[in-house]
């Protein structure tokens, strides 16, 4: 959402997307800042600088980590469905269903979320994105990214 707020928000579609879709793609490294011509106009210089900072890859990936406190978790599945890495390995997750693939970052087992493959998290190589979606949308503050 922070990335989106810094975009021109004109929905001019010069990048081929809406600003909102473009923001997500930026986070996922599917597009580059250069794909938005408006951003390079003078009035957006400050935004551009902030965006560059925001999208800077997590420097040393092994300084990052993700903790899940199972005792707080209610199995709501918000983390499962919001996680872009989960969606890309198991498309049914995009439709809100539980993750049947063994390749996902999280899935809910016996009523609580379990980390299945932490290395799939986009914070790690090759993506190294500063994603915090699961942490942000957990109802129970059970996820902590550090």
């Amino acid at each position, binding site marked *: *959402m922070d990335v*989106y707020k810094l975009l021109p928000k004109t929905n001019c579609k010069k990048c081929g997307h809406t600003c*909102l*879709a473009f*923001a*997500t793609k930026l986070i996922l490294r599917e597009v580059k800042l250069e794909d938005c011509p408006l951003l390079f106009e003078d009035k957006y210089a400050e935004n551009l600088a902030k965006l560059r900072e925001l999208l800077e890859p997590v420097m040393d990936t092994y300084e990052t980590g993700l903790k899940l406190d199972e005792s707080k*978790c*209610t*199995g*709501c*599945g*918000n983390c*499962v*469905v*919001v996680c872009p890495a989960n*969606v890309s390995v198991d498309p*049914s997750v*995009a*439709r*809100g*269903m*539980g*993750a*049947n693939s063994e390749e996902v970052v999280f*899935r*809910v*087992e*016996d*009523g*609580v979320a379990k980390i299945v493959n932490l290395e799939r998290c986009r914070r790690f190589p090759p993506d190294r994105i500063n994603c915090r979606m699961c942490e942000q*949308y*957990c*109802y*129970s503050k059970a996820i902590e990214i550090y």
Partner: protein
Amino acid sequence: MRVEAVCTGCSLLCDDIVVEVKGGRVKKVLHACAIGAKRIESALEAERALKPLAGGRIVSLDEAVKQAAEMLREARRPLLYGWCNSVNEAVRLGLELARKVNGFFDGPMSVCHGYSIWYARMKGIRPPKLDEVLDRADHVVYWGCNPAESHHRHASRFAVFPRGEKTPEGVESRSVTVVDVRPTRTMRIANHRLIIPPGRDAALAKLIAGELSGSRGKPSEAGVAEEEFYSFIESLKRSTYVVVFYGLGLYSAGERSGVEGLYELIKVLESSGVKAAAIPMSGHYNMVGAVEEALSATGYPYAIDFSGGQPSFSQEQTAVKLLSKGEFDVVLVIGSDPLASMPRQAVSGLKKSKVIAVDYQLSLTARAAELVLPAAVGGVESGGTATRMDGERLELKPFLEPAGCSRADEEILKMVAKEL
């Protein structure tokens, strides 16, 4: 063995559950939230009702059924209470049974969402299916409900996080608003948080409707913070498809004006060119089904009195009210625990009557009952159809054999009816 299942932990009836079963035991439950997983595990719990009991003594199923039939036959004024945790087929049998014994048919729906389900049906309003909400709703409002505590997967399975046809970015394609009387956990996923004093729901609905139709009011009239309110209105005006999920918070102090005000607001939204709908967040897994079955059998939603032969209904005469007056001498309770949940006066009325409990667990009510008929766990050990909060009928997929002497609700009701 891996099997698919439908969760009966709440009225969301999540149908993507996978259960690993080995030797008649559950090894692992995938995708169900904590409430759902607990319900599935409860089939194997110590509190489980496994044997028919008469006066605390273990009896044969035949004996218990005969005794139940006799109690109902000889009752001066029997109440048949529950139904929200039974499949549609069992509700239908319950209605027939109530007619046969000239009984009173009611359940938690009369003090819960029964009224709003009925109100919408009366007005000819059909809620959209949850899959449509997933695909199209770009503004989701949780009003007087807290799914983070009650319907854990509501946002992730359907309403907020999934990516749909018109909502390709999931949560980022939608605005989420929560209206409540205090900060709630659901507010953690919200863009707009409207906190109002208890009982101001109708006033807030009116205020929003006014903003949309050009007659401005004052946010203070509904006790809502100005800045938050106007940023919500801005976002509402940009929305194309608004779905309001509402909870019991709309009935504060037993008022119905909240529900009526909300449906008025839906009308105003629609006439301003926005698609809009409201769906009650009923709790028990088949409350919508119980009300719909009652409506189609009798034309009445709940609190149906068969004592005069023909069914009759009065909104003011609910089981809770009549129990408080000590009206019933025999009470059949199915899939409900009124002793634990009813107000004190009704409880004392209930304690004076003879209770037949049909349940899978030894609830407070079952422990105090004259007679216990052990039931199978719906959705786990017995099947049938249940109706989701949006009116969608789903076929349950049981995966265990009924434990001990337990039987499906339907089977128990059929046996009792046959003995009458």
